[in-house]
Protein backbone atom coordinates (compact mmCIF):
# COMPACT_ATOMS: atom_id res chain seq x y z
CA UNK A 1 0.00 0.00 0.00
CA UNK A 2 1.20 3.50 -0.68
CA UNK A 3 2.95 5.34 2.11
CA UNK A 4 2.00 8.84 3.07
CA UNK A 5 4.32 11.14 1.14
CA UNK A 6 7.12 12.40 3.35
CA UNK A 7 7.16 16.09 4.04
CA UNK A 8 10.01 17.87 2.30
CA UNK A 9 12.70 19.70 4.25
CA UNK A 10 11.60 23.06 2.89
CA UNK A 11 7.99 22.49 3.93
CA UNK A 12 9.07 21.23 7.31
CA UNK A 13 11.27 24.25 8.00
CA UNK A 14 8.54 26.57 6.82
CA UNK A 15 5.90 25.09 9.13
CA UNK A 16 8.21 24.91 12.15
CA UNK A 17 9.64 28.41 11.70
CA UNK A 18 6.13 29.80 11.38
CA UNK A 19 5.06 28.01 14.55
CA UNK A 20 7.99 29.56 16.42
CA UNK A 21 6.37 32.89 15.66
CA UNK A 22 2.99 31.59 16.79
CA UNK A 23 1.67 31.31 13.24
CA UNK A 24 -0.05 28.33 11.67
CA UNK A 25 -0.33 27.42 8.02
CA UNK A 26 -4.12 27.57 8.08
CA UNK A 27 -4.11 30.92 9.88
CA UNK A 28 -5.52 29.60 13.13
CA UNK A 29 -4.36 30.52 16.59
CA UNK A 30 -2.07 27.76 17.91
CA UNK A 31 -4.50 27.04 20.71
CA UNK A 32 -7.72 26.96 18.73
CA UNK A 33 -9.76 24.16 17.22
CA UNK A 34 -11.03 24.10 13.69
CA UNK A 35 -14.77 24.61 13.32
CA UNK A 36 -16.65 21.61 14.64
CA UNK A 37 -19.65 20.73 12.50
CA UNK A 38 -22.14 18.21 13.81
CA UNK A 39 -24.93 16.81 11.68
CA UNK A 40 -27.39 14.08 12.51
CA UNK A 41 -28.98 11.43 10.34
CA UNK A 42 -32.55 10.18 10.08
CA UNK A 43 -32.22 7.69 12.90
CA UNK A 44 -31.17 8.18 16.49
CA UNK A 45 -27.54 7.64 17.40
CA UNK A 46 -26.08 8.60 14.06
CA UNK A 47 -23.80 11.59 13.86
CA UNK A 48 -21.42 13.03 11.30
CA UNK A 49 -18.60 15.11 12.77
CA UNK A 50 -16.42 17.38 10.65
CA UNK A 51 -13.35 19.11 11.94
CA UNK A 52 -11.92 20.93 8.96
CA UNK A 53 -11.22 18.22 6.41
CA UNK A 54 -11.32 15.46 9.00
CA UNK A 55 -14.63 13.63 8.96
CA UNK A 56 -15.84 10.85 11.22
CA UNK A 57 -19.20 9.11 11.37
CA UNK A 58 -20.48 7.41 14.50
CA UNK A 59 -23.44 5.09 14.74
CA UNK A 60 -24.82 3.53 17.89
CA UNK A 61 -26.79 0.33 17.66
CA UNK A 62 -28.36 -1.80 20.36
CA UNK A 63 -29.40 -5.41 20.66
CA UNK A 64 -30.61 -7.62 23.46
CA UNK A 65 -28.21 -10.31 24.62
CA UNK A 66 -27.59 -12.58 27.61
CA UNK A 67 -25.19 -10.90 30.03
CA UNK A 68 -21.80 -12.26 30.99
CA UNK A 69 -21.90 -14.80 33.80
CA UNK A 70 -19.62 -12.79 36.08
CA UNK A 71 -21.49 -9.53 35.48
CA UNK A 72 -25.18 -10.37 35.55
CA UNK A 73 -26.31 -6.78 36.26
CA UNK A 74 -24.42 -5.09 33.46
CA UNK A 75 -25.08 -4.49 29.81
CA UNK A 76 -22.18 -4.27 27.39
CA UNK A 77 -20.75 -1.44 25.40
CA UNK A 78 -18.18 -1.86 22.66
CA UNK A 79 -16.50 0.71 20.48
CA UNK A 80 -15.36 -0.46 17.09
CA UNK A 81 -12.79 1.66 15.33
CA UNK A 82 -11.72 0.14 12.09
CA UNK A 83 -9.94 2.40 9.68
CA UNK A 84 -10.07 1.72 6.00
CA UNK A 85 -8.44 3.18 2.92
CA UNK A 86 -11.28 5.68 2.65
CA UNK A 87 -9.68 7.94 5.25
CA UNK A 88 -6.29 7.70 3.63
CA UNK A 89 -4.87 5.17 1.14
CA UNK A 90 -2.10 4.37 3.59
CA UNK A 91 -4.58 2.63 5.89
CA UNK A 92 -5.05 -0.96 4.95
CA UNK A 93 -8.02 -3.17 5.70
CA UNK A 94 -7.26 -5.82 8.29
CA UNK A 95 -3.84 -4.41 9.05
CA UNK A 96 -4.21 -1.90 11.87
CA UNK A 97 -1.68 0.89 12.06
CA UNK A 98 -0.21 2.35 15.24
CA UNK A 99 -2.78 5.11 15.06
CA UNK A 100 -5.51 2.48 15.00
CA UNK A 101 -4.27 0.88 18.21
CA UNK A 102 -3.71 4.19 19.96
CA UNK A 103 -7.13 5.39 18.99
CA UNK A 104 -9.06 2.36 20.16
CA UNK A 105 -7.10 2.22 23.45
CA UNK A 106 -7.68 5.89 24.07
CA UNK A 107 -11.40 5.75 23.43
CA UNK A 108 -11.59 2.70 25.63
CA UNK A 109 -9.83 4.52 28.44
CA UNK A 110 -11.67 7.79 27.98
CA UNK A 111 -15.22 6.63 27.52
CA UNK A 112 -15.56 3.09 28.75
CA UNK A 113 -13.21 3.07 31.71
CA UNK A 114 -14.30 6.50 32.92
CA UNK A 115 -17.80 4.92 33.15
CA UNK A 116 -19.39 7.60 31.05
CA UNK A 117 -22.14 5.14 30.27
CA UNK A 118 -23.93 3.54 33.19
CA UNK A 119 -23.80 -0.11 32.18
CA UNK A 120 -26.14 -1.21 34.96
CA UNK A 121 -28.88 0.90 33.42
CA UNK A 122 -28.70 -1.37 30.37
CA UNK A 123 -29.92 -4.35 32.38
CA UNK A 124 -33.40 -5.62 31.52
CA UNK A 125 -33.68 -8.83 33.55
CA UNK A 126 -30.79 -9.75 35.84
CA UNK A 127 -28.64 -12.55 34.45
CA UNK A 128 -31.18 -13.03 31.66
CA UNK A 129 -31.35 -10.14 29.27
CA UNK A 130 -29.32 -6.97 28.89
CA UNK A 131 -28.81 -4.39 26.19
CA UNK A 132 -25.62 -4.62 24.23
CA UNK A 133 -24.60 -1.28 22.79
CA UNK A 134 -22.22 -0.89 19.97
CA UNK A 135 -20.56 2.23 18.65
CA UNK A 136 -19.29 1.95 15.09
CA UNK A 137 -16.90 4.66 14.06
CA UNK A 138 -16.26 5.23 10.38
CA UNK A 139 -13.30 7.36 9.41
CA UNK A 140 -14.08 9.03 6.13
CA UNK A 141 -11.39 11.59 5.74
CA UNK A 142 -8.13 12.03 7.61
CA UNK A 143 -6.65 15.44 8.08
CA UNK A 144 -5.25 15.11 11.57
CA UNK A 145 -6.74 14.92 15.02
CA UNK A 146 -8.74 11.74 14.47
CA UNK A 147 -8.66 11.02 18.21
CA UNK A 148 -10.51 14.14 19.32
CA UNK A 149 -12.94 13.90 16.43
CA UNK A 150 -13.70 10.25 17.18
CA UNK A 151 -14.26 11.05 20.83
CA UNK A 152 -16.62 13.92 20.06
CA UNK A 153 -18.46 11.69 17.58
CA UNK A 154 -18.89 8.85 20.07
CA UNK A 155 -20.08 11.07 22.90
CA UNK A 156 -22.49 12.99 20.66
CA UNK A 157 -23.88 9.79 19.19
CA UNK A 158 -24.37 8.30 22.66
CA UNK A 159 -26.16 11.45 23.81
CA UNK A 160 -28.30 11.40 20.67
CA UNK A 161 -29.20 7.71 20.84
CA UNK A 162 -32.56 6.56 22.14
CA UNK A 163 -33.15 3.11 23.51
CA UNK A 164 -36.54 1.46 22.86
CA UNK A 165 -38.74 1.11 25.91
CA UNK A 166 -38.88 -2.38 27.37
CA UNK A 167 -41.61 -3.69 29.62
CA UNK A 168 -41.10 -6.82 31.66
CA UNK A 169 -43.97 -8.85 32.99
CA UNK A 170 -42.88 -12.07 34.55
CA UNK A 171 -40.90 -13.99 31.99
CA UNK A 172 -42.05 -11.93 29.04
CA UNK A 173 -40.04 -9.05 27.71
CA UNK A 174 -41.71 -6.65 25.29
CA UNK A 175 -39.58 -4.27 23.29
CA UNK A 176 -41.81 -1.44 22.15
CA UNK A 177 -41.06 -0.07 18.70
CA UNK A 178 -40.28 3.62 18.38
CA UNK A 179 -43.71 4.26 16.89
CA UNK A 180 -45.46 2.83 19.93
CA UNK A 181 -43.62 4.35 22.87
CA UNK A 182 -41.25 7.28 22.94
CA UNK A 183 -37.75 5.83 23.24
CA UNK A 184 -35.59 6.91 26.15
CA UNK A 185 -32.10 8.46 26.11
CA UNK A 186 -29.16 6.56 27.60
CA UNK A 187 -28.02 7.36 31.08
CA UNK A 188 -24.75 9.13 30.42
CA UNK A 189 -23.05 10.07 33.67
CA UNK A 190 -20.69 12.59 32.14
CA UNK A 191 -19.26 13.55 28.76
CA UNK A 192 -15.53 12.87 28.64
CA UNK A 193 -13.90 14.68 25.73
CA UNK A 194 -10.37 14.18 24.46
CA UNK A 195 -8.08 17.09 23.72
CA UNK A 196 -4.83 16.25 21.97
CA UNK A 197 -1.77 18.46 22.25
CA UNK A 198 1.01 18.18 19.70
CA UNK A 199 4.50 19.33 20.56
CA UNK A 200 6.51 20.83 17.75
CA UNK A 201 9.91 22.02 18.94
CA UNK A 202 10.68 25.09 21.00
CA UNK A 203 10.01 28.74 20.28
CA UNK A 204 12.50 31.63 20.57
CA UNK A 205 12.15 31.89 24.36
CA UNK A 206 12.98 28.20 24.71
CA UNK A 207 9.39 27.28 25.55
CA UNK A 208 7.75 24.27 24.04
CA UNK A 209 5.38 24.96 21.15
CA UNK A 210 2.20 23.06 21.88
CA UNK A 211 -0.50 23.05 19.25
CA UNK A 212 -4.16 22.08 19.59
CA UNK A 213 -6.12 20.22 16.92
CA UNK A 214 -3.15 19.46 14.67
CA UNK A 215 -3.69 18.91 10.96
CA UNK A 216 -2.20 15.88 9.20
CA UNK A 217 0.79 17.99 8.18
CA UNK A 218 1.47 19.10 11.73
CA UNK A 219 0.96 15.56 13.01
CA UNK A 220 3.60 14.30 10.61
CA UNK A 221 6.08 16.87 11.93
CA UNK A 222 5.37 16.68 15.65
CA UNK A 223 7.90 15.43 18.15
CA UNK A 224 5.40 14.21 20.65
CA UNK A 225 1.77 14.30 21.59
CA UNK A 226 -0.36 14.07 24.66
CA UNK A 227 -4.07 13.41 24.99
CA UNK A 228 -5.96 14.65 28.01
CA UNK A 229 -9.56 13.62 28.55
CA UNK A 230 -11.62 16.00 30.62
CA UNK A 231 -15.33 16.41 31.23
CA UNK A 232 -17.15 19.70 31.50
CA UNK A 233 -16.83 19.72 35.28
CA UNK A 234 -13.10 19.93 34.79
CA UNK A 235 -12.42 16.40 36.03
CA UNK A 236 -9.48 14.78 34.28
CA UNK A 237 -10.49 11.28 33.15
CA UNK A 238 -7.18 10.19 31.71
CA UNK A 239 -3.88 11.52 30.47
CA UNK A 240 -2.03 9.63 27.81
CA UNK A 241 1.51 10.48 26.86
CA UNK A 242 3.12 7.61 25.05
CA UNK A 243 6.66 8.38 23.98
CA UNK A 244 7.82 11.43 22.13
CA UNK A 245 9.51 14.46 23.53
CA UNK A 246 9.69 14.90 27.31
CA UNK A 247 7.27 17.43 28.78
CA UNK A 248 7.83 19.52 31.91
CA UNK A 249 5.34 19.18 34.74
CA UNK A 250 4.54 22.85 34.36
CA UNK A 251 3.61 22.44 30.70
CA UNK A 252 1.44 19.48 31.58
CA UNK A 253 -0.49 21.51 34.14
CA UNK A 254 -0.91 24.30 31.64
CA UNK A 255 -2.19 21.85 29.04
CA UNK A 256 -4.63 20.26 31.48
CA UNK A 257 -6.06 23.64 32.37
CA UNK A 258 -6.37 24.58 28.72
CA UNK A 259 -8.05 21.24 27.95
CA UNK A 260 -10.64 21.83 30.67
CA UNK A 261 -11.41 25.19 29.16
CA UNK A 262 -11.70 23.84 25.59
CA UNK A 263 -13.94 20.99 26.71
CA UNK A 264 -16.43 23.46 28.19
CA UNK A 265 -16.76 25.05 24.76
CA UNK A 266 -17.10 21.73 22.96
CA UNK A 267 -19.63 20.50 25.51
CA UNK A 268 -21.73 23.58 24.93
CA UNK A 269 -21.52 23.12 21.17
CA UNK A 270 -22.69 19.50 21.42
CA UNK A 271 -25.56 20.45 23.73
CA UNK A 272 -26.71 23.16 21.34
CA UNK A 273 -26.48 20.84 18.32
CA UNK A 274 -28.46 18.14 20.12
CA UNK A 275 -31.16 20.59 21.16
CA UNK A 276 -31.44 22.01 17.64
CA UNK A 277 -31.79 18.52 16.26
CA UNK A 278 -34.50 17.64 18.75
CA UNK A 279 -36.46 20.73 17.78
CA UNK A 280 -36.27 20.02 14.03
CA UNK A 281 -37.04 16.34 14.59
CA UNK A 282 -40.26 17.16 16.45
CA UNK A 283 -41.31 20.08 14.30
CA UNK A 284 -45.06 20.51 14.25
CA UNK A 285 -45.35 17.56 16.54
CA UNK A 286 -44.63 19.09 19.90
CA UNK A 287 -47.44 17.26 21.67
CA UNK A 288 -45.68 14.04 20.93
CA UNK A 289 -42.56 15.44 22.52
CA UNK A 290 -44.41 16.54 25.65
CA UNK A 291 -46.00 13.16 26.08
CA UNK A 292 -42.60 11.57 26.41
CA UNK A 293 -41.69 13.71 29.38
CA UNK A 294 -42.77 12.79 32.86
CA UNK A 295 -42.75 16.39 34.10
CA UNK A 296 -45.89 17.18 32.12
CA UNK A 297 -49.37 16.53 33.32
CA UNK A 298 -51.13 13.69 31.62
Amino acid at each position, binding site marked *: MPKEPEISLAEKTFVLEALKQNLRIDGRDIHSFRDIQLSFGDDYGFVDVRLGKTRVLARISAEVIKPRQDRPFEGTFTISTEMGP*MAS*PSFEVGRPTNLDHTLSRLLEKSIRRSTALDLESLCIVTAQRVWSLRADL*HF*LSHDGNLIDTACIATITALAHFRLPVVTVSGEDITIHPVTERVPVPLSLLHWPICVTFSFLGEDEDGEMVCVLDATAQEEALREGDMTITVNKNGEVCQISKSGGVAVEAETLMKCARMAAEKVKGIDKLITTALRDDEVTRNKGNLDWLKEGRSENER
Partner: protein
Amino acid sequence: MASSPLAPEISLNPLPQADGSCQYTCPTSRTTILTSVNGPLEVRPKDELPSHATIEVIVKPGIGVAGVRETRLSSLIHSTLQSLILTNHHPRTLIQIVAQIVQAEDHTSLPLLLTPLLNCTILSLLIAGIPMRTVGWSVHLAVVQGAKGIKGVEGQVFKLEGGGDDGMETEESEEVVVRNPNSEILSRAKSSHTLTFSKEGDILLIESLECSQGSGGESADGQGWDISDFLKLAEEGKRICCEEGVEIIREALADRKVF
Protein backbone atom coordinates in the same frame (compact mmCIF):
# COMPACT_ATOMS: atom_id res chain seq x y z
CA MET B 1 -34.32 15.74 -13.36
CA ALA B 2 -32.93 17.07 -10.12
CA SER B 3 -36.35 18.24 -8.99
CA SER B 4 -38.03 14.94 -9.82
CA PRO B 5 -38.91 12.71 -6.87
CA LEU B 6 -37.24 9.84 -8.70
CA ALA B 7 -33.86 11.48 -8.83
CA PRO B 8 -31.36 10.45 -6.18
CA GLU B 9 -29.56 13.03 -4.12
CA ILE B 10 -25.99 13.12 -5.35
CA SER B 11 -23.15 15.03 -3.85
CA LEU B 12 -19.87 14.85 -5.71
CA ASN B 13 -16.47 14.88 -4.09
CA PRO B 14 -17.55 15.14 -0.46
CA LEU B 15 -14.16 13.74 0.61
CA PRO B 16 -11.34 16.12 -0.25
CA GLN B 17 -8.58 13.55 0.30
CA ALA B 18 -9.76 10.91 -2.17
CA ASP B 19 -9.17 11.04 -5.93
CA GLY B 20 -12.87 10.77 -6.48
CA SER B 21 -15.80 10.38 -4.13
CA CYS B 22 -19.56 10.53 -4.19
CA GLN B 23 -22.42 10.42 -1.77
CA TYR B 24 -25.66 8.98 -3.06
CA THR B 25 -29.06 8.86 -1.40
CA CYS B 26 -31.77 6.68 -2.85
CA PRO B 27 -34.97 8.72 -3.26
CA THR B 28 -37.34 6.18 -1.72
CA SER B 29 -35.52 4.01 0.77
CA ARG B 30 -33.19 6.78 2.02
CA THR B 31 -30.27 4.40 1.70
CA THR B 32 -27.15 6.55 1.75
CA ILE B 33 -23.84 5.36 0.39
CA LEU B 34 -20.50 7.07 0.34
CA THR B 35 -17.79 5.82 -1.97
CA SER B 36 -14.24 6.87 -2.52
CA VAL B 37 -11.97 5.90 -5.39
CA ASN B 38 -8.22 6.09 -5.31
CA GLY B 39 -6.13 5.12 -8.25
CA PRO B 40 -4.01 4.25 -9.99
CA LEU B 41 -2.04 3.34 -6.88
CA GLU B 42 0.88 1.11 -6.09
CA VAL B 43 -0.32 -2.47 -5.95
CA ARG B 44 0.66 -5.19 -3.49
CA PRO B 45 3.00 -7.60 -5.30
CA LYS B 46 0.68 -10.58 -4.76
CA ASP B 47 -2.24 -8.78 -6.43
CA GLU B 48 -0.23 -7.37 -9.31
CA LEU B 49 -1.42 -8.23 -12.82
CA PRO B 50 1.18 -7.96 -15.60
CA SER B 51 -1.04 -6.26 -18.18
CA HIS B 52 -4.02 -4.99 -16.22
CA ALA B 53 -4.88 -2.81 -13.29
CA THR B 54 -6.15 -4.61 -10.22
CA ILE B 55 -9.57 -3.49 -9.04
CA GLU B 56 -10.17 -3.71 -5.33
CA VAL B 57 -13.65 -3.16 -3.93
CA ILE B 58 -14.14 -2.84 -0.18
CA VAL B 59 -17.65 -2.58 1.18
CA LYS B 60 -17.84 -1.36 4.75
CA PRO B 61 -21.04 -2.01 6.67
CA GLY B 62 -22.80 0.66 8.69
CA ILE B 63 -23.10 -1.59 11.71
CA GLY B 64 -20.60 -4.21 12.81
CA VAL B 65 -17.64 -5.63 10.98
CA ALA B 66 -17.57 -6.75 7.36
CA GLY B 67 -18.73 -10.31 6.84
CA VAL B 68 -20.09 -12.59 4.15
CA ARG B 69 -22.73 -10.06 3.07
CA GLU B 70 -20.17 -7.37 2.38
CA THR B 71 -17.93 -9.82 0.53
CA ARG B 72 -20.89 -10.80 -1.61
CA LEU B 73 -21.70 -7.19 -2.41
CA SER B 74 -18.12 -6.32 -3.20
CA SER B 75 -17.75 -9.31 -5.52
CA LEU B 76 -20.92 -8.27 -7.38
CA ILE B 77 -19.64 -4.73 -7.75
CA HIS B 78 -16.23 -5.99 -8.74
CA SER B 79 -17.56 -8.17 -11.53
CA THR B 80 -19.71 -5.33 -12.86
CA LEU B 81 -16.86 -2.85 -12.85
CA GLN B 82 -14.44 -5.31 -14.38
CA SER B 83 -16.24 -4.90 -17.70
CA LEU B 84 -16.53 -1.12 -17.36
CA ILE B 85 -13.06 -0.02 -16.36
CA LEU B 86 -10.35 -0.06 -19.01
CA THR B 87 -7.89 -1.92 -16.83
CA ASN B 88 -5.31 -2.27 -19.58
CA HIS B 89 -4.67 1.48 -19.47
CA HIS B 90 -2.88 1.26 -16.15
CA PRO B 91 -1.14 -2.11 -15.94
CA ARG B 92 0.50 -3.13 -12.64
CA THR B 93 -1.48 -0.63 -10.60
CA LEU B 94 -4.35 -0.71 -8.16
CA ILE B 95 -7.71 0.99 -8.46
CA GLN B 96 -9.11 1.02 -4.98
CA ILE B 97 -12.80 1.53 -4.32
CA VAL B 98 -14.15 1.86 -0.80
CA ALA B 99 -17.88 1.97 -0.28
CA GLN B 100 -19.27 2.91 3.09
CA ILE B 101 -22.89 2.25 3.95
CA VAL B 102 -23.81 5.44 5.75
CA GLN B 103 -27.49 4.97 6.32
CA ALA B 104 -29.90 2.22 5.41
CA GLU B 105 -33.43 1.21 6.26
CA ASP B 106 -32.30 -2.36 6.61
CA HIS B 107 -28.58 -2.91 6.97
CA THR B 108 -28.97 -6.60 6.18
CA SER B 109 -30.83 -6.41 2.88
CA LEU B 110 -28.63 -7.08 -0.13
CA PRO B 111 -30.99 -5.88 -2.92
CA LEU B 112 -31.68 -2.56 -1.17
CA LEU B 113 -27.98 -1.84 -0.89
CA LEU B 114 -26.75 -3.09 -4.25
CA THR B 115 -28.28 -0.46 -6.56
CA PRO B 116 -27.15 2.59 -4.55
CA LEU B 117 -23.71 1.01 -4.15
CA LEU B 118 -23.30 0.48 -7.90
CA ASN B 119 -24.57 3.90 -8.93
CA CYS B 120 -22.47 5.66 -6.34
CA THR B 121 -19.36 3.74 -7.34
CA ILE B 122 -19.79 4.55 -11.01
CA LEU B 123 -20.17 8.26 -10.26
CA SER B 124 -17.08 8.34 -8.09
CA LEU B 125 -15.08 6.48 -10.75
CA LEU B 126 -16.05 9.19 -13.22
CA ILE B 127 -14.98 11.88 -10.77
CA ALA B 128 -11.68 10.13 -10.12
CA GLY B 129 -10.97 10.16 -13.84
CA ILE B 130 -10.53 6.41 -14.13
CA PRO B 131 -10.74 5.46 -17.83
CA MET B 132 -13.94 3.57 -18.52
CA ARG B 133 -15.34 1.87 -21.59
CA THR B 134 -18.78 3.33 -20.98
CA VAL B 135 -20.96 4.28 -18.04
CA GLY B 136 -23.64 2.16 -16.48
CA TRP B 137 -26.64 2.71 -14.29
CA SER B 138 -28.42 0.37 -11.98
CA VAL B 139 -32.07 0.09 -11.05
CA HIS B 140 -33.91 -2.08 -8.58
CA LEU B 141 -37.36 -3.27 -9.62
CA ALA B 142 -39.83 -5.13 -7.46
CA VAL B 143 -42.93 -6.91 -8.70
CA VAL B 144 -45.78 -6.26 -6.27
CA GLN B 145 -49.33 -7.43 -6.38
CA GLY B 146 -51.59 -4.40 -6.01
CA ALA B 147 -49.60 -1.32 -5.18
CA LYS B 148 -52.65 0.45 -3.79
CA GLY B 149 -52.24 1.78 -0.31
CA ILE B 150 -48.47 1.89 -0.47
CA LYS B 151 -47.25 5.30 0.53
CA GLY B 152 -44.37 7.16 -0.98
CA VAL B 153 -44.19 5.39 -4.33
CA GLU B 154 -45.98 8.00 -6.43
CA GLY B 155 -44.54 8.00 -9.88
CA GLN B 156 -42.49 4.89 -9.18
CA VAL B 157 -45.10 2.37 -10.28
CA PHE B 158 -45.76 1.02 -13.73
CA LYS B 159 -47.72 -1.89 -15.16
CA LEU B 160 -46.12 -4.88 -16.70
CA GLU B 161 -48.64 -4.99 -19.51
CA GLY B 162 -48.24 -2.53 -22.33
CA GLY B 163 -45.74 -0.24 -20.70
CA GLY B 164 -46.72 2.07 -17.92
CA ASP B 165 -47.79 5.50 -17.11
CA ASP B 166 -46.75 7.06 -13.87
CA GLY B 167 -49.36 7.52 -11.21
CA MET B 168 -52.13 5.62 -13.02
CA GLU B 169 -54.92 3.82 -11.25
CA THR B 170 -54.24 0.18 -10.63
CA GLU B 171 -56.52 -2.68 -9.77
CA GLU B 172 -56.07 -4.21 -6.36
CA SER B 173 -54.94 -7.59 -7.62
CA GLU B 174 -52.96 -6.39 -10.59
CA GLU B 175 -49.25 -6.96 -10.71
CA VAL B 176 -47.24 -3.80 -10.89
CA VAL B 177 -43.56 -3.04 -10.87
CA VAL B 178 -42.20 -0.63 -8.29
CA ARG B 179 -38.96 1.10 -8.97
CA ASN B 180 -36.39 1.43 -6.18
CA PRO B 181 -38.69 -0.07 -3.55
CA ASN B 182 -38.15 0.56 0.14
CA SER B 183 -38.03 -2.27 2.64
CA GLU B 184 -41.77 -2.19 3.25
CA ILE B 185 -42.57 -2.70 -0.43
CA LEU B 186 -39.80 -5.22 -0.80
CA SER B 187 -41.28 -7.35 1.96
CA ARG B 188 -44.53 -7.55 -0.02
CA ALA B 189 -42.85 -8.12 -3.37
CA LYS B 190 -43.27 -11.33 -5.33
CA SER B 191 -39.83 -10.91 -6.77
CA SER B 192 -37.22 -8.22 -7.03
CA HIS B 193 -34.53 -7.69 -9.60
CA THR B 194 -31.47 -5.52 -9.70
CA LEU B 195 -30.58 -4.66 -13.27
CA THR B 196 -27.57 -2.78 -14.50
CA PHE B 197 -27.24 -1.61 -18.07
CA SER B 198 -24.53 0.29 -19.83
CA LYS B 199 -25.30 3.52 -21.65
CA GLU B 200 -25.54 1.54 -24.90
CA GLY B 201 -28.08 -0.86 -23.44
CA ASP B 202 -25.79 -3.81 -22.78
CA ILE B 203 -26.55 -5.87 -19.72
CA LEU B 204 -23.90 -5.55 -17.02
CA LEU B 205 -25.63 -7.22 -14.11
CA ILE B 206 -28.81 -9.11 -13.36
CA GLU B 207 -29.39 -10.15 -9.81
CA SER B 208 -32.66 -11.42 -8.46
CA LEU B 209 -31.43 -11.47 -4.91
CA GLU B 210 -33.26 -12.86 -1.91
CA CYS B 211 -36.57 -13.07 -3.66
CA SER B 212 -35.86 -15.87 -6.03
CA GLN B 213 -34.32 -19.28 -6.10
CA GLY B 214 -32.15 -19.62 -9.13
CA SER B 215 -32.84 -19.46 -12.83
CA GLY B 216 -36.33 -18.30 -13.74
CA GLY B 217 -37.52 -20.30 -10.81
CA GLU B 218 -39.62 -19.49 -7.84
CA SER B 219 -39.62 -16.60 -5.47
CA ALA B 220 -38.95 -17.28 -1.83
CA ASP B 221 -42.64 -17.26 -1.00
CA GLY B 222 -43.26 -19.88 -3.67
CA GLN B 223 -45.44 -17.66 -5.83
CA GLY B 224 -42.98 -17.63 -8.65
CA TRP B 225 -42.36 -15.35 -11.57
CA ASP B 226 -42.17 -16.38 -15.15
CA ILE B 227 -39.69 -15.56 -17.84
CA SER B 228 -42.07 -13.49 -20.00
CA ASP B 229 -42.76 -11.13 -17.10
CA PHE B 230 -39.08 -10.92 -16.47
CA LEU B 231 -38.30 -10.00 -20.07
CA LYS B 232 -40.84 -7.18 -19.99
CA LEU B 233 -39.39 -6.00 -16.75
CA ALA B 234 -35.88 -6.12 -18.15
CA GLU B 235 -37.03 -4.05 -21.11
CA GLU B 236 -38.38 -1.38 -18.77
CA GLY B 237 -35.22 -1.56 -16.68
CA LYS B 238 -33.17 -1.00 -19.79
CA ARG B 239 -35.20 2.07 -20.64
CA ILE B 240 -34.76 3.49 -17.15
CA CYS B 241 -31.01 2.86 -17.11
CA CYS B 242 -30.27 4.04 -20.63
CA GLU B 243 -32.47 7.11 -20.65
CA GLU B 244 -33.07 8.34 -17.12
CA GLY B 245 -29.93 6.92 -15.56
CA VAL B 246 -27.66 8.42 -18.16
CA GLU B 247 -29.53 11.70 -17.82
CA ILE B 248 -28.96 11.68 -14.06
CA ILE B 249 -25.24 11.09 -14.55
CA ARG B 250 -25.09 13.79 -17.19
CA GLU B 251 -26.80 16.32 -14.94
CA ALA B 252 -24.71 15.41 -11.92
CA LEU B 253 -21.52 15.91 -13.87
CA ALA B 254 -22.76 18.85 -15.92
CA ASP B 255 -20.55 21.51 -14.41
CA ARG B 256 -17.55 19.22 -14.34
CA LYS B 257 -17.24 18.89 -18.10
CA VAL B 258 -16.68 15.16 -18.01
CA PHE B 259 -18.96 14.43 -20.92
